[in-house]
């Protein structure tokens, strides 16, 4: 599956994220239909399918679109330079490297004829929703591939062990993205990943924030996949596309990736042990949970299509992710407090109004005026959720409460 990704050339360009000239890049199109964009935050427009000429569509970025990340690679090199940083826990990284080299899923991502048959049976609105799901997931996995690949390349000299782990994680992400893209081919579509690499905007995060954000992305990814898998195992009548059968093994990769970021943060205790770290931890938890909740509530058709209640699914994923995250972040949110869900639900209501304003034909300044109270309302809900009393947490290797723990 990884070979599929060899089509993606401009990795070396990754460090300069401001490549936004899509018109020059048209190679690597092997399919009759090429998707030039990834999902928007609103329910999918019925225009994702492109004509044979591959008419380009603007990439509609929004706050909630899966994002591509870039970071300060020089700072990363410094952070993991074993000469400078003598406290790096080699043992943990060597253990992780062994685990990634084991490659549990080397032979897992093999397709069969069920895929095409299932795709052909999916018609009507559900078909469109599935396409969007595959696109978004593929973009997200691919985004991980790009970042990890580059980190693997950049850290080779200063820390070969950490570099090799990044490379092996990019192997996993490439496999996942390739598998999802093959899924799109069942719908006679394909994501032009080369085009995406160049045309997407890259969000810059300092290394510290990359750690928080990617840790959460990986762990929440695990909880989303395993929850869908276990739900469908129990309710096979909703198993409308075979990709979900692969999720159990698949999401173990995500979980391991999260563990690696856990080890990276432990190797940089300054990111975990002060009051700013606590504030940032809560900020990233909230951002990730709110984004998922708002996103998913715009796509209830998908979750209902596979027999899930969207909000219950999301709350379960949030609670489990938060419990997992509490093993490394120095503070997490009190998501099990019913008030947290009430706040999320109010955000959904405001966000839907915001989207509705955006879709009217009003002139843009009228739209903006109408948006002001809604944005203010959303911001104050988010702030209120952020200020809810947090839960002190952390790895037992660091946490202050460790001496009193009974195991």
């Amino acid at each position, binding site marked *: 599956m990884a070979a599929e990704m060899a089509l993606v050339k401009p990795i070396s360009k990754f460090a300069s994220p401001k490549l936004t000239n899509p018109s020059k890049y048209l190679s690597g199109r092997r399919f009759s239909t090429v998707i030039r964009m990834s999902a928007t935050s609103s329910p999918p427009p019925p225009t994702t399918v492109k004509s044979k000429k591959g008419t380009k569509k603007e990439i509609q970025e929004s706050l909630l679109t*899966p994002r591509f990340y870039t970071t300060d690679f020089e700072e990363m090199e410094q952070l993991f330079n074993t000469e400078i940083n003598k406290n790096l826990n080699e043992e943990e990284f060597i253990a992780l490297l062994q685990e990634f080299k084991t490659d549990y899923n080397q032979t897992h991502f093999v397709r069969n004829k069920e895929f095409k048959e299932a795709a052909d049976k999916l018609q009507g609105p559900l078909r469109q929703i599935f396409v969007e799901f595959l696109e978004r997931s593929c973009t997200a996995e691919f985004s991980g591939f790009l970042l990890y690949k580059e980190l693997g390349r950049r850290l080779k000299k200063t820390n070969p062990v950490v570099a090799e782990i990044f490379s092996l994680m990019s192997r996993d992400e490439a496999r996942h993205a390739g598998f999802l893209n093959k899924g799109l081919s069942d719908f006679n579509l394909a994501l032009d990943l080369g085009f995406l690499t160049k045309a997407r905007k890259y969000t810059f995060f300092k290394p510290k924030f990359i750690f928080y954000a990617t840790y959460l992305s*990986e762990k929440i990814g695990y909880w989303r996949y395993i929850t869908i898998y*276990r739900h469908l195992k129990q309710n096979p009548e909703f198993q409308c596309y075979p990709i979900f059968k692969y999720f159990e093994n698949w999401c173990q990769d995500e979980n391991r990736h999260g563990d690696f970021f856990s080890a990276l943060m432990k190797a940089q205790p300054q990111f975990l042990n002060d009051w700013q770290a606590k504030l940032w931890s809560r900020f990233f938890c*909230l951002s990730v949970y709110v984004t998922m909740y708002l996103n998913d509530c715009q796509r209830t058709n998908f979750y209902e299509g596979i027999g899930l209640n969207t909000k219950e699914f999301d709350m379960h994923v949030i609670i489990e992710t938060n419990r997992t995250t509490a*093993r490394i972040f120095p503070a997490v949110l009190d998501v099990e407090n019913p008030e947290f869900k009430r706040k999320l639900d109010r955000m959904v209501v405001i966000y839907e109004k915001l989207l509705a304003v955006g879709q009217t034909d009003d002139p843009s300044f009228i739209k903006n005026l109408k948006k002001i109270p809604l944005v203010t309302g959303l911001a104050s809900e988010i702030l209120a959720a952020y200020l809810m009393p947090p839960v002190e947490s952390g790895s037992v290797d660091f946490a202050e409460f460790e001496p009193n723990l009974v195991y």
Partner: protein
Amino acid sequence: MWSVTVTGALGVAVPTAAACRPKPFLISSSLPKQTTKLHLSPPQLTLTSHFSSSFKAAATSVQQQSDNKGESTKYYFLVANAKFMLDEEEHFQEQLFERLRYYGEREKELDFWLVIEPKFLDKFPKITQRLRRPAVALVSTNGSWITFMKLRLDRVLAESFEATSLDEALASNPTTLEFDKPKNWVAPYPKYEPGWWETFLPKKIEESVV
């Protein structure tokens, strides 16, 4: 996976006195009701033929190692109370089954086990005084893997010891584990069936109980 991203729009106000409510984990005010009784009839292992070969291999190696008296092997373990290891942390079984599948595919000899109430704990008073009972240990001859599992599970204690035979290393005080059903199960799927851990108990020792 990278399906969610961070909204760039959240303005961060820094609370001056964020009220903190410490919530230490694993210290549950109500201890789970657990019954302890002797293991009179060991549970039948139901293994697919695919996996049984690795178990046979493991059993053979138990025999071989038992014959090699005098030579000691290092065993690495992590341990916590049974409720945490097998019930609350139930998704930990996904990793064990994944590893078992992998060992089956590569015809690798099994080198990890779950041990309920291991006898070797007696050698670690510093651990036992902080451990709720009954306890369950994950034991392996692969130290790196135990390091990795410690990173994953976090809320466990890790140590190592030497033993001259597998029987000695994995000896346990037979205990039957029963966990209360969770009062508030909101996951959109049922809990894993209790007893999933039996696949990973040392086979030889189960037989010796009969």
